[in-house]
């Protein structure tokens, strides 16, 4: 395997509603910034890969317009996944492993505010047996939270504590959306949104874009002072049917973490893509993270959850922490699908 590093990361501030700019206008400054910061000339970046979904824009081929933000002239070698940008980064990493290219631009984008995102995500469920029942994203997560509460694996208070800590940490992240000092007892006194989830257990609706440049060792060392090395990147999938899996566990996260080498060295930081508070508890257990690991210093997905961008943002935030010297080894995680169905784990390390 070739050594590959994240050499730069940039994002828009994640916001509740980006109405003034369309997707291309959101992306252009982010891509300019990430390329500039990478120290690699734009024309020398060998591959471009993006992640997005048509169901945010409400338009078929919505990623096609994003090509305009990249400046694909002369024509570029480019691909797209209908997945979180973290998987676009994986595809780019594979391309570099093939030896065909030495560097890649990865990005993802979306405006969740354009529609009723939680309801739209019902269309992600099995169209024959599940979607007709109308389970939206919050209800699916609520089933999962309930399963863990019933089994005594976590309490509503522990869930609230995750939310309070996340939004407190987000105060130090200028690009986070939902932040502030909250009190556990006060929010536990609030009514349920979808029992047993209260509003504070759920992610905000977020618009935004993020981008990263990754490069093989030679290029990375030359271009960048502090490359953040990808020591392992793996992803796995669980069953889709909520009835055919134990919702309180995440075997795919566990398997991806083991394969990526999560336990082969001391971790300082973990950026976990847990859109719902109880999911952080599931992920922490699946990855075997000890209490010494700082979880989600960025505030995580409870502070901003741009659909299909939040996973790439975890990799970006973890690499930022390493560059800032807040830790040497970090785990970044991305999820997709109802109830943490698909999971990716990326182990990052500074020099």
């Amino acid at each position, binding site marked *: 395997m070739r050594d590959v590093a994240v050499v730069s990361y940039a994002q828009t501030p994640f916001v509740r509603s980006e109405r003034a700019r*369309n997707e291309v206008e959101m992306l252009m400054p982010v891509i300019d910034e990430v390329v500039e910061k990478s120290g690699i000339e734009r024309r020398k970046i060998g591959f*471009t890969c993006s992640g997005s*979904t*048509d*169901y945010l*824009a*409400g*338009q*078929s*081929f919505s990623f*096609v317009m994003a*090509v*305009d933000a990249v400046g*694909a*002239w*002369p*024509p*570029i*070698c*480019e*691909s*797209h*996944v*209908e*997945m979180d940008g973290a*998987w676009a980064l*994986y*595809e780019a990493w*594979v*391309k570099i*492993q*093939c*030896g*065909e290219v030495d560097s890649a631009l990865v990005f993802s984008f979306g405006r969740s505010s354009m529609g009723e995102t939680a309801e*739209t*995500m019902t*269309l*992600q*469920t*099995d*169209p*024959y047996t*599940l*979607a007709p029942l109308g389970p939206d994203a919050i209800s699916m997560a609520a089933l999962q939270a309930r399963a863990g509460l019933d089994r005594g694996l976590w309490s509503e208070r522990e869930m609230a504590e995750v939310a309070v800590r996340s939004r407190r940490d987000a105060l130090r992240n200028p690009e986070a959306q939902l932040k502030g000092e909250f009190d556990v007892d006060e929010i536990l006194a609030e009514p349920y949104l979808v029992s047993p989830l209260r509003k504070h257990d759920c992610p905000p609706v977020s618009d935004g874009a993020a981008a990263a440049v990754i490069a093989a060792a030679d290029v990375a060392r030359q271009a960048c002072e502090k490359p953040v090395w990808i020591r392992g990147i*793996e*992803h*796995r*999938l*669980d*069953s*889709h*049917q909520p009835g055919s899996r134990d919702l309180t566990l995440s*075997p*795919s996260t566990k*398997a991806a973490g083991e394969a990526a080498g999560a336990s082969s060295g001391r971790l300082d930081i973990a950026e976990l893509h847990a859109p719902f508070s109880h999911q952080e508890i599931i992920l922490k257990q699946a990855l075997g993270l000890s209490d010494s690991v700082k979880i989600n210093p960025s505030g995580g997905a409870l502070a901003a959850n741009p659909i299909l961008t939040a996973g790439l943002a975890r990799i970006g935030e973890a690499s930022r922490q390493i560059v800032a010297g807040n830790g040497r080894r970090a785990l970044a995680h991305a999820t*997709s*699908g*109802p109830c943490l*169905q*698909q999971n990716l784990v990326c182990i990052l390390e500074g020099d």
Partner: protein
Amino acid sequence: MAEHAAVIGIGQTKYDAKRIDVSQFGLIREAATRALEDAELGWKDIDAVVIGKAPDMFEGTMMPELFLAEALGCVGKPMLRVHTAGSVGGSTAIVAASLVQAGIHQRVLTVSYEKQSESNAMWALSIKMPFAPTMVAGAGGFFAPLIRGYIQRSGAPDDTGIRVALKDRLNALKNPYAHLKLPDVDFDMIANSPMLWDPIRYLETCPSSDGACAMVIGDEKQARRAAKPAAWIHATNMKTEPTMFAGRDQVMPRAGLECSAELYKKAGISDPRSEIDCAEIYVPFSWFEAMWMENLHFAPLNEGWKMTYEGATALGGDLPVNMSGGVLSSNAIGASGMIRFAEAAMQVRGQAGEHQVDGARRSLGHAYGGGSQYFSMWIVGDQPLA
């Protein structure tokens, strides 16, 4: 240095307007099971799955690969979902191949599909967005002006498109999986069919199909161990350019010209016309055969139509094109690119049955998408590239 990768199993469904006998699960399962049987492998032998399809609104489902997890046997495994417009079937195969070439996996299953009968593609392509012009109804309306531009430049005879359609429709009669089969087809039947988008007639356009195509891609060890011949992947390439800007030539896109030139270089090909035995390319409207012959450097500029006219692209010609009957005969959009790639592989494996090109040793698979702006291609051969 990249590892060798080869196609060691291929499976296709019967393509049809409405496959109401199967769900989306059943459709992909049909193709995937056949590919595994062809490779003489079981579900447990597969390391990872790469799935591709065109816009999710074509079925009215969002990221369907998630609910297809069990049907694709990828619970507990890595799964990637690719979407690069019409070229997606080709790009999906390329991503699957890269997982093997990078030495990450030994056996990758790749599947692409479309079940257009579950939604309405015309609706999905015509959604009005704020501050944007509505797209004219369907792809035909978009591509017809490009064809007219080609005719004006090249002076190609008016019946070039009819001749392409006749050839492809006759080839489809030899393909058991083809959707549209017209046993009595002749020149006059196509010439007299209604004009849809001048100069594209009804029988010069592709149907709307349900269907899936799957391949198993293995590493060198797998390919050498396999009972059936492998199609060795010599080179792959993808190129993209923006939809519109003043400097763009939409009739002869630079992305396609550069994609194929780089592809041949990677495969060690200096004269594609003589060194490639057959080509399966993405021709959703008849005239695109002539245009792509030039874009793929098989013919000089403005002379692609001559290859059709001289019979060079017919099954007995010096460069048979679209032996399967092509997109004109089966168009499960998300799968269409992969069907081209699979046909190229079937030819060098010698398993194309009645539409086999005698002695095919090296072939081209090609797909394009968007507004003639996304290209994906591969070259496969009966021996590994030295």
